[in-house]
């Protein structure tokens, strides 16, 4: 396996050829914010939070997708990128119904954390206040579509880790919605194994454990990481 060197934020970094910029940066201790990306799941490239500037490239590229190249010069934290990241987070807040004070995931929510990271002190856009459903038909879990940011983590975790592919996406644009099976109530799903990996992967309070009340949900992300490490790196350290 060959190794390439590149600079990320002025720092000389070596990386395996074929690695993404995100992997290379994280291994070098440079934090690029991400939202739809989860270690061990395929990259999605939809949230656009991890966009970086590459010298000589007219387009911004998602760090989770873009492969490293020899001599590449990457900027991950410019004024322009910070502005874009904040706008994108504001768009997400305006698009759904994200009311932290009544959310099960308050204090344990990656969207909330991201708002703090990008310095979002208020939302400049109109709240759309969409009318979305809540599906409580499953015996252990519920999904509140009002809090869904359509990151597809649940879809990828269910498909790639559990192998059930219960979740998928229906509709398009602002009418997109994650569904179980052929848009049937989750509780009636024939394929769901009730493993809870979608719950582990969900960044917000959208997929939650029944019985949790405000600020009680703590997504057991460590479990997901354990599974991924066991599968990909054959490491079983708890």
């Amino acid at each position, binding site marked *: 396996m060959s190794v390439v060197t590149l600079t990320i934020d002025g720092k000389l970094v070596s990386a395996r050829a074929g690695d993404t910029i995100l992997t290379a940066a994280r291994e070098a201790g440079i934090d690029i914010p991400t939202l739809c990306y989860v270690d061990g799941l395929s990259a999605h490239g*939809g949230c*656009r939070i991890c966009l970086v500037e590459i010298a000589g490239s007219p387009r911004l590229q998602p760090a989770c997708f873009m492969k490293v190249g020899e001599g590449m010069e990457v900027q991950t934290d410019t004024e322009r990128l910070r*502005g*874009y990241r904040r*706008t*994108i987070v504001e*768009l997400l807040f305006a698009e759904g119904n994200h009311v932290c004070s009544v959310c099960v995931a308050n204090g344990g929510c990656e969207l909330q954390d991201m708002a703090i990271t990008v310095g979002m002190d208020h939302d*400049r856009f109109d709240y759309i206040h969409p009318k979305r459903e809540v599906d409580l038909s499953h015996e252990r879990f519920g999904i509140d579509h009002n809090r869904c940011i359509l990151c597809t983590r649940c879809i990828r975790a269910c498909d790639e880790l559990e192998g059930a592919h219960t979740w998928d996406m229906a509709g*398009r644009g602002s*009418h997109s919605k994650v569904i179980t099976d052929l848009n049937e109530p989750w509780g009636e799903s024939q394929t769901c194994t009730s493993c809870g990996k979608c719950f582990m992967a969900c960044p917000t309070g959208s997929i939650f454990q029944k019985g949790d009340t405000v600020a009680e949900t703590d997504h057991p992300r460590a479990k997901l990481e354990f599974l991924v490490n066991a599968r990909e790196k054959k490491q079983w350290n708890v």
Partner: protein
Amino acid sequence: MELTDLLDIAAKERQARLPHTIRCCTAAGCLSAGSGAVLDRLRGAVHDEGLTERVGVAAVGCLRLCCQGPLVRVDSPVASGGGEGAGITEELYQRVTPDDAGSIVAGFKGGTVTANKGDLKSPFFQLQASVILENSGRVEPERIETYIAAEGYQSLHRVLRNFTPAEVVEEMTRSGLRGRGGAAYPTGVKWATVAKNPGEKKYVVCNADEGDPGAFMNRSVLESDPHRVLEGMAIAGYAIGANQGYIYVRGEYPLAVQRLHTAIAQAGRLGLLGSHIFSSPFDFRIDLRTGAGAFVCGEETALMASIMGQRGTPTPRPPYPAEHGLWGMPTLLNNVETYANVPTILRRGADWFASIGTEKSKGTKVFCLTGKVVNTGLVEVPLGTPLRKIVHDIGGGAPEGGTIKAVQTGGPSGGCIPAELFDTPVEYDSLAKLGSIMGSGGMIVLDDKNNMVDVARYFMQFCMDESCGKCVPCRAGTVQLHRLLTRILEGRAGAEDVQQLEALCDVVKHTSLCGLGQAAPNPTLSTLRFFRHEYEALLKPGSPAQRMGLPLVSASQPR
């Protein structure tokens, strides 16, 4: 099938031609105006009048002047002089009713023709070129023999016999042809890239998912001359080393789908597609894939996902399809019109093709002229033709005394070019400089009754409805842009809303995943650039606080 067989079919078809030919347009535009009944009546009348030995009736494709459909053309030999090469006279009839059709046939027996005569000497026809549309309105799209009689499939034979794949690529590169789908990437370079990328299998894909509002170039080509596209794809397959082609055609084009099915079956039956084409080792088959009504599936990565049976959403590039396309294999993706150019380029030579157009934009381009203009329809002109010539000379200017204000080019990814700049030559780079694009060829003429904010909002609504929802800036950003434009249009906005509109346009343009989102702000940005006064005329004065009626701090201070 050998070349002699091909020439035989062509010769038989030419011999069977009758002295007089009535050509009736059966492309979707004229059919929807009733040309089906006209065709039936023409055929019935020829039979009833006993003219079947003298007059042939052909169901042809688009005759270009769509606004005057149903269109019928009559070719007759010149009466006096006679002899070989004495030429033919051509007559155009427009807005033909079934009763008019009867009278056209009666005209051959000295009856009075009641149909409205069109003017083939008018600038609309005289100023046009014929490369891509050379057979349109001449060959019968459902009869392969007519295409063969028009020298069809001879380029494929020549390529298979006389050219190495590398020479075909070289010929395409020398022609200077650039992709006609909108991105204008040099076709030869793309072919060379796919040819050089290693892969145990390669694919040729034709993008026929034309979705821009007001654009129907590809539909017309597919409905009028489908074999030209098949031949172009087969030549591409030989050049890059593929033996499987897919045409991804939108489901909203049922007639194009049907004619492609017919064309593929006919070509297969004659051995012009399939195994050992012209007794060479080259195999090539073409299958159709029908879209299910998503504009985003015209984006190449989404299109490939859809062909593979997945949800039609884009993925980030790189990797490009040329390297990692259908099922991970090198894939050549071109537009219908790009493939339609190929047989002609190889028949007449790259130098001939490169002599048309401008230095950086070679060849001709088909445009769909629509909107507030007298002559709407299909227009083919050499690249570099000034916009004024297309809109005012070919298009005939504004109807009913209106004033043309702008032309929208490139659909929801393009922009508006104001009338002051109509001397701009229509080519890739000059339109890009004006913040628009040539796109796939839609041209919507706008007059002084069109509010440009409304135009911008219309296209934003289109992008909002067609966003696939995968990436946040396109999914949520277009919703907010649409709200801002609505607020401005309804007179509820202030100067700060325009500022926010511009800022958000910048975000959506630069952070969206695929071309749909990246180009969605273009109509808004270009109307802001050239028609800012129309935005400003709709704004309320003052700051938001003042508009809400809150007292100003200075006003409440004691004197």
